[in-house]
């Protein structure tokens, strides 16, 4: 935990995890990079366009025994739409992502580098296309490719493990299993490949509380 002030506007900013070096200032939307004790303003971030997502920073939830709080968000866009990735800080200090797309939610955790076979990593790094239904083994589990797309960052907010300015690009592969497990493989602009695994969960299953309320819509009973 580190409490400091935004190098651009002076507003207080808080870094809650040593693993998350980037914080978008809530007030001036400057992206602040922390290296050790030094803070550096590295650019302005566009405001996240309003959407009807029931999630927001500060929402609390639970994945199994572990509670979490949403502390950051990146909004990605691709040719046929956009989706949110919310950074969840768990009570034990670890992090995960809640993917929010087409009104559905995926709770995802990053896996170790060796969970993906090197040949798969090389294939993805090469940028060659991957057909849907291709089976990819992640950590011993076979996932089928459901979707494969080029994505661009629209905006970001809160604390993040990387700087996510407008125009940041990535390759995103969505995968699924028959058991409701899902996975995501992302290749970032630098060509690094990371894999995330988890499962589709409803807001009720996530025990999400502190959701946004919307005019005329009853808050689900699980969030009360």
């Amino acid at each position, binding site marked *: 935990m580190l409490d400091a002030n935004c190098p651009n*506007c002076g507003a207080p900013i808080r870094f809650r995890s040593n693993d998350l070096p980037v914080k978008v200032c809530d*007030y001036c939307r400057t992206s602040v990079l922390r290296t050790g004790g030094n803070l550096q303003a590295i650019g302005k971030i566009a405001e996240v366009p309003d959407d009807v997502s029931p999630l927001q920073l500060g929402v609390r939830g639970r994945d199994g025994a572990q509670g979490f709080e949403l502390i950051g968000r990146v909004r990605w866009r691709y040719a046929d739409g956009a989706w949110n990735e919310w950074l969840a800080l768990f009570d034990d200090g670890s992090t995960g992502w809640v993917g929010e797309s087409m*009104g559905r939610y995926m709770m995802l955790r990053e896996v170790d580098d060796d969970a993906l076979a090197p040949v798969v990593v090389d294939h993805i790094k090469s940028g060659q296309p991957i057909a849907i239904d291709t089976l990819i083994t992640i950590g011993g589990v076979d996932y089928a490719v459901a979707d494969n797309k080029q994505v661009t960052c629209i905006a970001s907010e809160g604390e993040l493990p990387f700087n996510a300015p407008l125009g940041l690009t990535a390759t995103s592969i969505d995968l699924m299993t028959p058991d409701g497990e899902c996975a995501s493989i992302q290749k970032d602009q630098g060509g690094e490949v990371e894999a995330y695994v988890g499962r*589709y969960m409803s807001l009720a299953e996530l025990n999400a509380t502190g959701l946004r309320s*919307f005019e005329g819509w009853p808050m689900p009973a699980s969030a009360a």
Partner: protein
Amino acid sequence: MSDDALPADAAPPAPAQPPVAPVTPASTVRALSCPNCGGIVNVRAQGLTVSVLCEHCGSTLDATSPDLQVIARANEALKTPEIPLGTRGTLNGRVWEIVGYMERTDEEIGWAEYLLFNPYEGYAFLVDDGRRFSLGIMLDRLPTMGWGNAMQLDHQSFSRFGGTYPVRVTFVVGEFYWRVAVGETVDETDFVRPGTMLSCEVYQTERTWTRLDLFDWGVAEKAFGIPARRREYSHPAPHEPSPYKRQLREALVVGVVALLALFVVSGIGGREQVIGQTTTDAVLDGPEKTVVIRGLDLPSARSRVVVDADAGAIDNAWVDLDYSLTDEKTQDSVDSYGLAEHYSGSDSDGSWTEGDPRPEVSLSSIPGGKYDLVVTLSAHRWNGGSSSSSFSMPTGFAGGSVFGQDSGQTIPVTVTVKRGGVFGGNILLAFLLIAAWPLIVLFKQFGFEKRRMAPVSGSGGSDDDSGGDDD
């Protein structure tokens, strides 16, 4: 209002103004104006919606661009969905708002799909085939392959319904979370079980599985305030449960019970009881003889009466038996006739015998009471045709013993009267009556299944199917 307190701890000392916490809940609806016609376009799922089709001019707008760029301009009168956009309804305890509407066709039949939205639940589909509604939820997991062409989901098996077929969008209005356009075609494959369909759609690099659950008649109509559809089963949906299945089960159960009862009744009623007997001698070629069996008691309201005659010793002769069963009280009588006969001989094919010396006569539905049976017998010798030139008997004719006997020879005839016993005909009739209802329902069920399978059982459909099975 605990929500309001959330951002309060972040009050900054800096001059920058903190973002104002929303005091009133945000609205999910954003009113924008169509850049083509200027009409108001209500975007109900901001941030999720990708395409908007203006309900005034039909132009396709890009909701991912801040100013609703026009993708396809249109200026045509649009049809209005039966359930207007923006209508809310509660299905299975969840509130849904209609945000989009499209019509699709497989080039044989068309149907409508409403896109439903709830900010906490996401999306669902309300599919209207013109008769019944189904709720469609996109699957977040993959069904597994089952036996043959079947698919497995949640321990339920879904059988494949026909081959893969193209589905084309013919009309669209409202907003959608994907890029929608008239003419867009996906390849669809359906798997069904009664009440539920799994639909697999492949579009370019994306495959989606949707589970469709059929609503009971009138449920969706009531939820969204439209007139209830009339029940009819002329063109069933592929996943429509047969309305006759339960009836068939009931009819079969009732039928089996009735059959068991029939067996028991016929077992009890089938036992015959001797109520009278007499033996008399009939004189061959002698005068008629009349005997009477008195005091035949028929206690049941309706009884079956069997009269057995036994002229066992008869050969190459016949006995005419006239029966008259007379009610002692009313003198009403029922008449019948029996013939005891037996002939034997031999010809070029060897020896032969013919005729029944023990005829049985059944009288059904005799009213209860005391009866007399009047039996009139007359016995006749068969001449073997030997006196007739037109009838040549084989040389080895064995009837000599009879010929050799004097006239006046007698034949003992025993007449036995029995009551009870169930007519085979009555049993059959009862069986048919019992079987009629299950059979009618069975035919209805077959008819329903035939109509349900009609879209894929035709010659074209089965060709498609066998073609699809090859891969």
